[in-house]
């Protein structure tokens, strides 16, 4: 077992601030202290070589959990063992064996070519020259960024930069990889490329990968097992199949119309979820009938713009509870 988490909790103190200037001034003198329980008593185990997805809405506690498991944060309560270490003791032997990539934080030197930062990481992780060269060659090949190594990081695109971040994180061949929203802000193509890379990496290197995301596609594509977190609690842990049934049952179609259409007519194409004004409509259709319904909509409605999306994670979770009969109070 590579990760063993027992009743891990983390709460933060923060200050309440109401809207407006008056309360800003009031805040200068007196601030009401509040406690937010970001993670509440979570427990789970992860085996070596597993690829597990943490799914949940923003602020659910995914990142906080990862930060505790990587030793960045001290928990308020509970225990965790990662690779046989207690992460927040931050032993060097522990640090040498894992990596964390945060989609929103970069570690590359902005003004220098990426290979300088990569070399710095080689030195930091005490990788010898030959291993470094072969790892670097392999990773740049896989991610298709060989030609970009000598370009200053500030000149790279977001997707290219993310790939360099990944290489920087993997240069010491970590056994365990934490990925926090690795595909955030990337276009669909880059997202896909990066997902394929992780799939390969997990299969070939037997590396354990823990991934957080609020895109279902990320998890769906990569992880057999998913842990769904909501409001700091684990609400589902297991095969993605069960979740998939709920999430994948229907799709959401967003329409921009050129001429107003009555709700009654719209209802014949699918369940009207939202109609913010006469010309902007959101429809929900069963996944199985997506193709026919889309075709019908495009043929018969005055469509300007057409978008197919997944059900938002928050709703999917709510649906999950409905299905399992878990009381709403927990969610």
């Amino acid at each position: 077992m590579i990760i063993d988490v027992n009743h891990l909790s983390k709460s933060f103190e923060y200050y309440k601030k109401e809207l407006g200037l008056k309360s800003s001034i009031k805040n200068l003198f007196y601030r009401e202290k509040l406690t937010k329980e970001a993670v509440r008593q979570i427990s789970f185990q992860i085996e070596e070589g597993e690829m597990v997805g943490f799914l949940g809405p923003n602020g659910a506690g995914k990142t906080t959990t990862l930060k505790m498991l990587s030793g960045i944060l001290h928990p308020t309560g509970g225990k965790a063992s990662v690779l046989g270490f207690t992460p927040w003791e931050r032993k060097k032997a522990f640090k040498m064996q894992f990596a964390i990539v945060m989609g929103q934080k970069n570690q590359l030197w902005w003004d220098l070519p990426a290979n300088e930062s990569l070399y710095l990481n080689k030195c930091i992780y005490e990788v010898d020259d030959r291993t470094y060269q072969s790892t670097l060659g392999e990773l740049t090949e896989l991610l298709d960024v060989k030609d970009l190594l000598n370009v200053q990081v500030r000149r790279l695109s977001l997707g290219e930069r993310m790939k360099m971040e990944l290489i920087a994180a993997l240069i010491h061949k970590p056994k365990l990889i934490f990925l926090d929203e690795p595909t955030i802000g990337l276009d669909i193509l880059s997202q896909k490329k990066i997902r394929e890379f992780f799939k390969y990496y997990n299969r070939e290197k037997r590396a354990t990968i823990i991934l957080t995301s609020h895109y279902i596609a990320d998890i769906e594509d990569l992880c057999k097992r998913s842990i769904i977190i909501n409001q700091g609690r684990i609400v589902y842990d297991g095969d993605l199949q069960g979740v998939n049934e709920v999430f994948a049952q229907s799709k959401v179609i967003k329409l921009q119309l050129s001429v107003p259409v009555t709700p009654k007519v719209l209802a014949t194409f699918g369940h009207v979820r939202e109609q913010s004004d006469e010309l902007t409509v959101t429809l929900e259709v069963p996944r199985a009938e997506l193709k026919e319904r889309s075709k019908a909509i495009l043929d018969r409605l005055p469509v300007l713009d057409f978008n197919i999306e997944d059900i938002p994670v928050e709703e999917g979770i709510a649906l999950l509870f409905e299905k399992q009969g878990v009381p709403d109070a927990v969610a």
Partner: protein
Amino acid sequence: MLLLKKYSKAFELGFQTALEYRLNFAISLVSAAYPIIIQTFLWTAIFQASAQQVVYGYTFRQMIAYTFLAGLVARIVRTGFEYEIMDDVKTGKFSRFLVQPVGYFQYRLCSFFGNKLPGLAMILGLLVIVLVGLNIFWGVSVQFVNILVFLVTMVLAITLNFLLFYSISAISFWIVEVGFLFEGIRIVTILLSGGIFPLEVFGDRFMQVVNFLPFKYTVSFPINVLNGKTDPAGIVTGILLQCLWIVIFLGVSNLLWRVGSRRFVAVGG
């Protein structure tokens, strides 16, 4: 060997970044000349209006020489990483140093010295020109021994100022936006260190206090070693005080950073 390598690489990257922005540095040198020129006018006026040849224990030429040297030395010891540290803490980038097997202090120190090196070389070159110029035009001569001792005190001064500002930058852990505070502290320290004009200007009582503060040992003291105003006994005491302050600030920065990063860990990045 591999252990040393990670810090020498940090040094090298700091060096490269400085070269990447060499034009910026050249411009900063020009801007450094500006206050020096203003002060030259100021002192000229003061000496002309004064009935005495010697003001605050300096002749006109000594005063101008001090002004030039202070401008250069203050620039050599000057830090700038406190803003980077603030940014690291504010944006949570600091957490990277918690998960990687690398010491933040050593990393900062090495990249700081690397970043300083090109500028340092340039300023030392300028210093030589200034010294030679002073010698040729005004006959202000500098002993060779003084230059050697000056270099020793400079290394200590740079180290001391690094530690001073490394300690100060720990404030980032408690206050999120500290840019202006850093600027304020910098202005006060530059004044107290004699980076603008000689500390004698402030009067005897003030001098007695300043002698016991660390600031003087970052700018004023090395200059007074170079221009021969400090006698051998004073030099020995000065160097000892530099070392003492370095030890003190090593302790202070260590403590502040330990408490601060514990706080960072508690509050989250």
